[in-house]
């Protein structure tokens, strides 16, 4: 396999760029919430009428998915040679 030949890190991977990207991302996030003052989102039920519902709900839902996956992984994760090693045992 080829070895890396670049002399200096790609501009996208420089810490300064990554810092700027985080700032940019943060501002876009803030904008999407602030925009709700100008563009009211009508909820369908109860909770989703709260301000910024989709923002915090999206964040919490994803955090919950990650934590649940972590917990399930604790029970169900196996080395990725799990089935292959069984095949070898049989052979």
């Amino acid at each position, binding site marked *: *396999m*080829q*070895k*890396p*030949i*670049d002399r200096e890190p*790609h501009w*996208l*991977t420089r810490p300064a760029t990554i810092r700027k990207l985080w700032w940019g*991302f943060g501002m*876009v*996030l803030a904008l*999407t*919430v602030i*925009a*709700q003052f100008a*563009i*009211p*989102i*009508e909820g*369908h*039920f*109860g*909770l*989703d009428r709260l301000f*910024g*519902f*989709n*923002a*915090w*709900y*999206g*964040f919490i*839902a*994803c*955090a*919950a*998915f*990650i*934590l*649940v*996956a*972590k917990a*399930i*992984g604790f029970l*169900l*994760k*196996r*080395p*990725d040679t*799990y*089935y*292959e090693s*069984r*095949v070898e045992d*049989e052979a």
Partner: protein
Amino acid sequence: MSLLHPGLILLLGGLLLGALPTRGRTAVILVLPLASLAALWALPEGVLWHGEFLGVAVAPLVVDKLSRLFATIFAIMAFGGGLFALRQQSRLEVPAAYIYAGSAISVVLAGDLATVFVFWELMAIGSTLVIWSAGNEAAWRASRRYFSIHLLGGVLLFAGVTGHLVQTGDLLFTRIALDSPAQWLILAGFLLNAGAPPLSAWLPDAYPEASWSGMVFLSAFTTKTAVYVLLRGFPGTELLIWVGLFMAMYGIIYALLENDMRRILAYSIVNQVGFMIVGIGIGTEMALNGAAAHAFTHILYKALLLMSAGAVLYQTGKRKCTDLGGLFRTMPLTCICGIVGALAISSFPLTSGFISKSMISEAAAHEHLAVVWYLLAAGSAGVFLHAGIKFPWFVFFQRDSGLRPSDPPWSMRIAMILLAAACIGLGVLYEPLYALLPYAVDYQPYTAPHVLTYLQLLLFSGLAFFVMLNFLRRTLTISLDVDWFYRVPAQTFVRGFEQLLASVRAQFGAALSAVGRRTNRVLDHWIGAEGELARTMSTGRMAFWLVVMLAGYLVTAYW
């Protein structure tokens, strides 16, 4: 009676393709799906082929809006997959894929359950051959598990269809009421192919073992044909809402745990089909339109994602996130196309996923299904998490793996560019797709609040991903699934049973030969070479016994 059946064009063409020499193939590979598409659009709506089979009316070619929609996307997908697979060395894969795709088109154009069943089984054979053509041990083993599960599905379906025929006296494929076990068996057979619980595991188990181009074909047909038959047979069946929600959540959780980039995408097929099945379960016109539209757009963006992953596999030979990373440097086109697919699957505004999936959530809101709506919203966020960011991040960014592969050959690039254009095109110009949907569409996806809703939901999901990146670090692991039951305990059981059988056989044999030996000894004693009855007697002894006998005779004669 029209002679040209779009499905059979592709199916028979696939059979012929297998016999063609490698040189003449390219043109045929590209022309066959287009011919199928042209034949499809030349057909009017209505029952076009009908006849009788075993005294029952059958209709192997019926066209309406729903079947035309699915047959169209299947033909388009066969073309895209064929184009992407032009560099495929296996002579088996594309012919098998065309037999598979042609059978899928024939299922959606079938007006009766007997025809559905026949092509349903041909799909299983075609897709198994596609997995085989990867040509390695893992694919061979996976294909056998895949085929066993699909044979089980076929048996369920056949039993159901037979029972349905006995009860109702006809096989016409219309809405099926869940009146008796027969109809439940049909539903079970359909759901098995959709990747529904409890047997979802066949999909992430088998698909990623196909070749770099094989999985592109596999992602499109089996599960979406299942979505079609559920749409036609079981719309508004409430159970499907919960089955679909389970699939959506299952796909997210397992994809989050997964290290193999193509298995991540396989789990996300289950997740996306889950959304469609929720729509079918809700069963209103808007929900069914949403499910059908989502199947259409899903086929395109999932194929694009798998082409992007296939290109990486083709160029690097690697599939695991732990081996990949930083490929954006030298595979910019593959990376951009992968990101377009990822945005589309996440339903970002201006992509195809946005104009289809949001119809299903909206339908849930219209029906005041609050729990369903909240779970669908969480699921939408989770899609961005497990497929939208995770796939491109770990494959193309993350860290520098040191790999510097270039973009793939041109045929593969063109296929990716076309599909990326379709994903964005459908996101912007959605009216032509809406016009193809089974019911009239009264839905406007691009309203400012709606766009803002999705942007908030998705971007904050992105924030969660990067904030919790440490929890998502890739490890060299797999996650056990239901397939464990038939790969480990069932195998142990069968092996144990074999051992038991062998030992019983051995002991029985030993006992039998002991009896044999004893019998032999007894026989030997009497009639062996030196046996009492068989040995050669001396003349003297014979004379003696003769005298004894004569003496005895004398005594008895004068008694």
